[in-house]
């Protein structure tokens, strides 16, 4: 049985060798089809995992409300430069959010961009004022020392926790523990802990926490105040912002839709006129992303299928030519006792071998291609073994499906006519 199958496959290979160039060209159609299927699935999978990781970092059970400078006044600095522009979230609102969502953890966040110095090392980055719960809600880990506590907050201590990247920049050679960092040239903060690096680049609009310094919320308010003055090109702009961000962590992802509704209702009342607060719901984004990725994947699958279809038509074309050329061989085989099913089998195997060879080389190319996409386009790609198997399986199936009609035609030739064929 196995010997017979092998014999049929070998026969198929021998017959294909009769027309090496033709067989190779036909195979190329399937080859590129399979390679593109694998590459596209790898790109799709990579993008999916990347998106998943990004939203996981933001926290799938989190709601994020962030203050935003209103658009209409953002560019016009002509009006009274000394009157501070007030916008964004307030402490009172944060308390209200906390009261409306009793099961949630609410974290208040203030930000200020300041130069930081330690010895000769200098870096301008964001000083984040926040509460102890930040660590859990933002899904970060302490690498060394400890994070901020309520006691630090109450005592208005000048202590700080450094983001992993910032710690490396300011303390390239020594241990930062209990050392002092100078902020804005005169504020001294004692380092009590260092966070583990998240490693991933944060998405647009979110703060790169790896490069931030974290201090107690009350200390932040005391040191930097609510009014922020920035100087750009000789003109001042003054902004009054109480809180830059409020993160809300809900107990589970089922609470996200209702929590998001409550939060939006609440903030809409306060900030309807000038939409100066943006609510981000990572779970919603994740779902949107998944939906659009799904559409994207469908489009990719359709394109890949078309290329395989074209390859299949090529195979059918070549098999029809082969059957015509070898009419006489078919007649001989029939005379020597071959039943119709034997003839069908022979040509189906030949078509299958043709496309499986293309599939095999296509798998090779399909594995190399995503690697090159990653190197050249910096797009994460993931090759799943089941995708490779799927692509190869489809290629073999294409051969069989498109070989069916030529094989059927071969089998149904009249043996007498076939033998007489020149």
């Amino acid at each position, binding site marked *: 049985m196995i010997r017979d199958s092998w014999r049929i496959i070998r026969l198929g290979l021998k017959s294909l060798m009769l027309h090496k160039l033709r067989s190779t060209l036909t195979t190329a159609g399937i080859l590129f089809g399979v390679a593109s299927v694998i590459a596209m699935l790898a790109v799709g999978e990579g993008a999916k995992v990347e998106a998943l990781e990004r939203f996981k970092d933001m926290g799938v059970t989190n709601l994020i409300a962030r203050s935003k400078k209103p658009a209409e006044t953002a560019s016009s600095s002509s009006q009274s430069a000394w009157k501070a522009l007030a916008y964004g979230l307030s402490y009172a609102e944060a308390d209200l959010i906390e009261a409306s969502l009793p099961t949630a953890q609410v974290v208040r966040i203030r930000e200020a961009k300041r130069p930081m110095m330690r010895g000769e090392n200098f870096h301008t980055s964001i000083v984040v004022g926040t509460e102890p719960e930040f660590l859990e809600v933002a899904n970060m880990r302490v690498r060394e020392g400890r994070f901020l506590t309520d006691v630090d907050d109450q005592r208005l201590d000048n202590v700080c926790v450094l983001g992993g990247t910032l710690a490396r920049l300011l303390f390239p050679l020594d241990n930062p523990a209990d050392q002092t960092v100078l902020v804005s040239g005169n504020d001294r903060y004692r380092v009590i802990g260092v966070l583990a690096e998240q490693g991933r680049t944060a998405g647009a609009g979110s703060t790169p926490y790896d490069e931030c310094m974290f201090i107690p919320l009350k200390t932040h308010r005391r040191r930097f105040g609510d009014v922020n003055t920035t100087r750009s090109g000789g003109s001042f702009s003054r902004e009054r912002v109480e809180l830059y961000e409020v993160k809300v962590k809900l107990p589970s992802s089922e609470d996200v839709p209702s929590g998001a509704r409550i939060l939006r209702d609440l903030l809409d009342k306060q900030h309807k006129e000038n939409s100066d607060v943006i609510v981000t719901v990572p779970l919603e984004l994740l779902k949107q992303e998944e939906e659009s990725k799904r559409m994207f994947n469908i489009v990719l699958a359709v394109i890949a299928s078309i290329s395989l279809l074209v390859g299949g038509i090529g195979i059918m074309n070549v098999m029809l030519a082969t059957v015509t050329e070898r009419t006489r*061989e078919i007649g001989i*085989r029939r005379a020597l006792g071959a039943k119709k099913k034997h003839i069908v089998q022979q040509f189906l195997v030949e078509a299958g071998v043709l496309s499986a060879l293309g599939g095999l080389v296509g798998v090779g190319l399909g594995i190399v291609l995503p690697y090159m996409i990653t190197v050249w386009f910096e797009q994460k790609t993931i090759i799943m073994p089941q995708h490779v198997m799927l692509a190869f399986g489809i290629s073999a199936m294409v051969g069989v499906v498109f070989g069916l009609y030529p094989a059927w035609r071969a089998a149904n030739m009249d043996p*007498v006519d076939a033998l007489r064929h020149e």
Partner: protein
Amino acid sequence: MGDDRDIIAEFVDVHRHYRMGDNTVRALNGVSMQVKKGDYLTIMGRSGSGKSTMLNLLGCLDRPTSGEYRIGGRDVSKLDDDALSSVRGREIGFIFQSFNLIPQLSVLENLEVPLFYQGRVGPESRRKAEYLAERVGLGQRLDHKPLELSGGQQQRVAIARALMNDPLFLLADEATGNLDSNTEKEILDLFDDLRPDGVTIVMVTHNPAVAERADRTLWLKDGEVDRLVENERAATAATEADA
């Protein structure tokens, strides 16, 4: 005829009519004949006499419109395609004018084709192929491709292939038509040589010199049996045997 050898192939009032538009062509019109074990029969006739139709029917490549065709006592005239294929594969050994070897296969593989379709390929079929290749004088060339052989050698391979399945009879269609006269003689000698093994031969030809070497010649005319001639050579051989 009066001898009691087994009848291995028999036509009983066989008709084969084709429809060509509104006309009916009566290619065979009530042919009855018998082939007995060990026979060497040639079928002759002008073109259009029904030779080819007769060959197709004898070879189970075609079915009669009416009448019976018995092979080994079994009526095969109404069998379906698969069953006819089996009969061809088991009972008949085809030899063609243009050898009809499969070009991409080696001599050995060509020899194994008939047994392959009966699922009988294995060490035994290889031994048999080697034996028959030896028997037809081609022992050393099992790994060659057909096109590397001369016409005579190719026809020897074809004869060996026809014998692979131990058929009831060999059915030859102008077996020497593509060969020069020397090679023709060699092939006809080979047929003579095979006969003591109990091989039965039916050959369709239009060459009287070829027909002469058979025991009997069946003459066809307009789709009917014109006459059945006992050849001289055969007659003398028979007398010698009696004496």
